[in-house]
């Protein structure tokens, strides 16, 4: 009986520890996970005349439904995109985040979009900060 209790307590402790670690991982800032190589990438389309208008159309087609036309989010689960955090993020950070998404929190992965279109969205997001 005692052994069973010890085993049960042990399992409970392991479970609680795992939940705490997992919770902390989920709550930690996603930008902290951007690999250094990705963080340092510059937007290869930056400065091209068509990058921002093309990015605006892509934003309208893919992002606006959640983040709204003014990029201020829905005030609930869909976050604004005009934030200090985004302003200070590198192009590489934003492209990486678009590619990865945040599936747990409802942000889909946009890895299926051609890479050039992700960079065009990055150019548009930069232009509205």
């Amino acid at each position, binding site marked *: 009986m005692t052994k069973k209790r010890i085993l049960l307590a042990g399992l409970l402790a392991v479970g609680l520890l795992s939940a705490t670690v997992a919770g902390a991982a989920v709550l930690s800032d996603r930008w902290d996970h951007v690999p250094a190589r990705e963080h340092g990438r510059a937007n290869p*389309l930056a400065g091209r005349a*068509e*990058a921002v*208008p*093309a*990015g*605006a*159309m*892509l934003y309208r*087609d*893919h992002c606006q*439904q*959640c983040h709204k036309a003014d990029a201020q989010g*829905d*005030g*609930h*689960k869909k976050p604004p995109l005009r934030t200090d955090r985004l302003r200070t993020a590198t192009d590489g950070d934003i492209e990486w985040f678009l*590619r*990865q*998404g*945040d*599936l*747990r*929190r*409802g*942000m*889909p*992965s*946009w*890895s*299926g*979009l*051609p*890479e*050039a*279109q992700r960079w*065009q969205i990055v150019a548009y997001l930069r232009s509205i900060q």
Partner: protein
Amino acid sequence: MLKNRCLIAILVWSGFLLSLVGSVRSSAQDKPYFVTYSHDLEEPGNLEVETKTALGRPDGSGKYGATAVEFEYGVRGWWTSELYLDGQATSQDSTLFTGFRIENRIRPLMREHWINPVLYVEYENISGADKTLLEVVGHDGQGDLAGPNSESRREHEHEGELKLILSSNVKNWNVSENFIAEKNLGHDPWEFGYAVGATHPLRSAASGRECTLCAENFIVGAEAYGGLGDTWSLTLGDTSHYVAPLVGWQLPGGARLSFSPGFGLTGSSLARVYRVGLAFEVPQISTWFHSEKGGIKE
């Protein structure tokens, strides 16, 4: 006669579904696969409606057109749920509803990797008259599609299906491999099959202007699929295999049109099967039932 019926059925379905919604769009990252699945899931809260029509003619039987209407909902970022309603019309025979399927796709890994696994679980409640060819498994062959509807509809296919989907997005290519195991829940052995495909957009960067025939609106590729026998006869004898070029066209109104001519590679396969798909997406349909603050609308 059959062509007219199929056309009318497609138009009626499409018109009916389009009339349900005011604004529609579809995602440019959706691939024009008909049988193969990639790891792209539906965006959370969105509903995609798609018709998948297969047109074929088995040896010794009339031409047929079979349509599956698919309702795909993004439950979570990592979980998509779907309902299929199937029907078919056969020349000099009848038109009938052939059943439904419910499927769920789950991404167990939350990050993007070189190879991204997706677990797929499906329950099918269809009759033997179903000809949509949404998958080919076991020793499926054109003989299964040739019987008169009055007889084949009596066969009840009460099946569970599992798929392991592996998919990669590399340098604008999508490469996907599916491994299929299907079991009739009443009897019969496990049946196995496969589907593989690859797609690539004609142009990777967007032009930044509204256009209909821009290269960026087209995705091309190919898929191959077929049966791998069953647990009673794990051989490739009497199995069907197909190879099918694909083209997907993003239409200006937001819908997506897909087309694929498929070619049978073995004697058991249909010589040709033509597929047409029409898809559109209803964004954030979940907000129709919830207020912006998250409560249920009164």
